[in-house]
C-alpha cells in the first residue's frame, strides 16, 4: 500500500511540475485522438443521419452490422490496417507505418461504427413532429435535417465524447501502428504499458491521472453545455 501511495504522490508531483516528457506524451495522445475523432465524426454523423432517416432495403442488416462492429477488438483493426500499410502492403510506398497518421487511420476505423450507431440511436429518438413542424413552417430538406440534428445534438455530442474516450484509452492500434516511438508516436496508454513493463510506476500513474482528469473534464464540459440549454 505504501508503495502505491509513494508512486501516487510522486506521480502528482511529476504532473504538477509539467514534466516535458509527460507533456509530449499527452500532446501526442490528444492530437492523434482528437483528429481521429473529428474525422470519424465528419463521416459518421451524416452517415448515421442518412441511415436513421433513409428507407432502403437492408437497413436492419446495416444497423446490425454496425452494432457488431462496436465489439471489434483494437488489435484486429491494428492487424488489418498493418496489412495495408506495411512495406509489402498496397499502401506501403506511402510510408505510413509507425506514424501518427497510421494511428489516426486505425482509430478512425475503430470509432466510425461507434459514432454512426450512436447517431442513429440519437436521431431515431428525436420526435417525428420536429420534422413535420419544420416542413410545415417552410423548411426545405436540408433545413429540416438541420432541425432534426439540432434537436438530437446532445445524443450526437454524447456519441462523439464516447468515441473520444474510446480512442484515447485504446492501446492495440497505437502500439501496432504507432510503434510507441518516444516523442513521436508514444501515447499515454503505450507509455503506461512500457513503464509497467519496466517496473517504473511513477510515470504510468501520472499518465493514468492525466487520462482520468481529461475524461472528467470532458464530461463536466458536456454537462455544463447540457445544463445551459435547459435540458
Amino acid at each position: 500500500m505504501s508503495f502505491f501511495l509513494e508512486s501516487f504522490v510522486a506521480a502528482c508531483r511529476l504532473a504538477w511540475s509539467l514534466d516535458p516528457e509527460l507533456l509530449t506524451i499527452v500532446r501526442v495522445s490528444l492530437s492523434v485522438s482528437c483528429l481521429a475523432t473529428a474525422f470519424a465524426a465528419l463521416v459518421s454523423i451524416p452517415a448515421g443521419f442518412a441511415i436513421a432517416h433513409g428507407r432502403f432495403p437492408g437497413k436492419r442488416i446495416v444497423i446490425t452490422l454496425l452494432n457488431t462492429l462496436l465489439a471489434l477488438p483494437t488489435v484486429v483493426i491494428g492487424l488489418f490496417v498493418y496489412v495495408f500499410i506495411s512495406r509489402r502492403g498496397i499502401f506501403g510506398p506511402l510510408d505510413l507505418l509507425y506514424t501518427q497518421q497510421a494511428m489516426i487511420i486505425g482509430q478512425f476505423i475503430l470509432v466510425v461504427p461507434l459514432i454512426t450507431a450512436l447517431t442513429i440511436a440519437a436521431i431515431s429518438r428525436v420526435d417525428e413532429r420536429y420534422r413535420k413542424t419544420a416542413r410545415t413552417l417552410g423548411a426545405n430538406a436540408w433545413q429540416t435535417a438541420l432541425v432534426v440534428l439540432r434537436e438530437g445534438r446532445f445524443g450526437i455530442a454524447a456519441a462523439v465524447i464516447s468515441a473520444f474516450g474510446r480512442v484515447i484509452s485504446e492501446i492495440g492500434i497505437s502500439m501496432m501502428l504507432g510503434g510507441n516511438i518516444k516523442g513521436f508516436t508514444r501515447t499515454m496508454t503505450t507509455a503506461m504499458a512500457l513503464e509497467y513493463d519496466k517496473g517504473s510506476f511513477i510515470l504510468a500513474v501520472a499518465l493514468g491521472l492525466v487520462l482520468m482528469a481529461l475524461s472528467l473534464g470532458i464530461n463536466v464540459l458536456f454537462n455544463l453545455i447540457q445544463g445551459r440549454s435547459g435540458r
Partner: protein
Amino acid sequence: MILYCLERVTRRYNDRLVLDIDRLEIESGRIHALLGPNGAGKTTLLNILGFLETPTTGRMSFCGKPVETSRAALLHLRRQVVLVDQHPIMFTTTVCGNIEFGLKIRGMERKARMRVVDEALETVGLRQFKHARAHELSGGETQRLALARALALAPSVLLCDEPTASVDAENQAVIAALLQAINASKGTTILFTTHDRLQAAALAQETLVLEKGRLTATTYENSYACTVFPGQNGRLRCTLHDQVEIPCELTLPAGFSERNSRVYIAPEKITLSRSVDRQSNHGVTGTVLLLMAEGEHIRVVVNIGVLMVVLLDRASYRHERPAIGETVSLQFAADAVTLLDRPS
C-alpha cells in the same frame, strides 16, 4: 374563390385505405370545420392540404393550379400553408427563437423579424414570454405559441388539428376568438378539425364531415354503431350499440343477413312528442337532457339509451314545449335512417 379542389383523391398506407374523397372544394377566406370520429382520416386530409403528404391517387389543385409533386413546387406551396398540430412541439430554444424559425429560413432580416415576432406574440397575448424557454410554457400557452409561430408567416391558409382539444376552457375560448380574429382581419382561410359539433357550429362558416375516410353529407352527430337484421315485411330492424332497437324503413336487399354496420339518423327528420305511446311500434321513448337554441332551430338531446339529437323548428318547439327531465317519444320519418355501410 375556390382555393383547394380535390378530385377522386385517395390515400393508402400499405393496403389500408384511409382517405377516399370523391370531390372536395374549399373556398378561400372562410373558416371551415372538419368533423369526424377518431380514425375518420381528418389528420391525413390536413396533411394532404398542408402539402406534407401526397395523395396516393387523384387530382388536386390549389388556387386554380394543379398541384405538382416536385420538391421545389411542394416547398413553394408549403410556404403558403401552415399546419398547427393537435400537440404542437416547440424547438429547443426560446419562444422568440421558435417564432423566428420560419422567418429566418425565408431570409428575413433580423430587425424585420423582431417586429413580426413582437406582433405575433402581441396577437396571442404572450409578449411577456418572448425570452422564456418554449418548453417551459403550459399546454394552453404552447398552443397559442404554435399559433403565433404560424401567424408570423402570414400564411394564406391556416390548418389546425384539433386546436382546442388539449387545453382548458379559458384557453379554448382564447384560441377560438383568435381564429375568428385572424380570419376577419387578414382574410386567412382557416380549416380546423374537431370532435365538437357545437364548436364547429359556433366558429365555422362551412362544415365538412368525414366518416371512414369519406366525406359524408350527414352531420357527424346521430351516427351510431349498430346491428341491422331482417325484420317483418321485408324491412330491416336496427339495434343501436346493442341497446336500443329502432324501426327503419329501409328495404331488404336480396340475400341480406344480420351484420354490424353504422347508421345515421337525420336529426331534423325525427318528430318529438310529449304524448308517450308505449304500445307504438313506430317510435322510441326517452328523457330530455338538453335544450339549446341554434339559429332557426331548437336542438334537443334525448337519452333513449343512447344520446340522440333532435332538431325542432321553432313552431314545433312552441307546440310541444318539451322540458328537461321530461319523458318524450320520438318518431322517425321514412327517410330518417341511412345506413352508412351499404349492405353487400
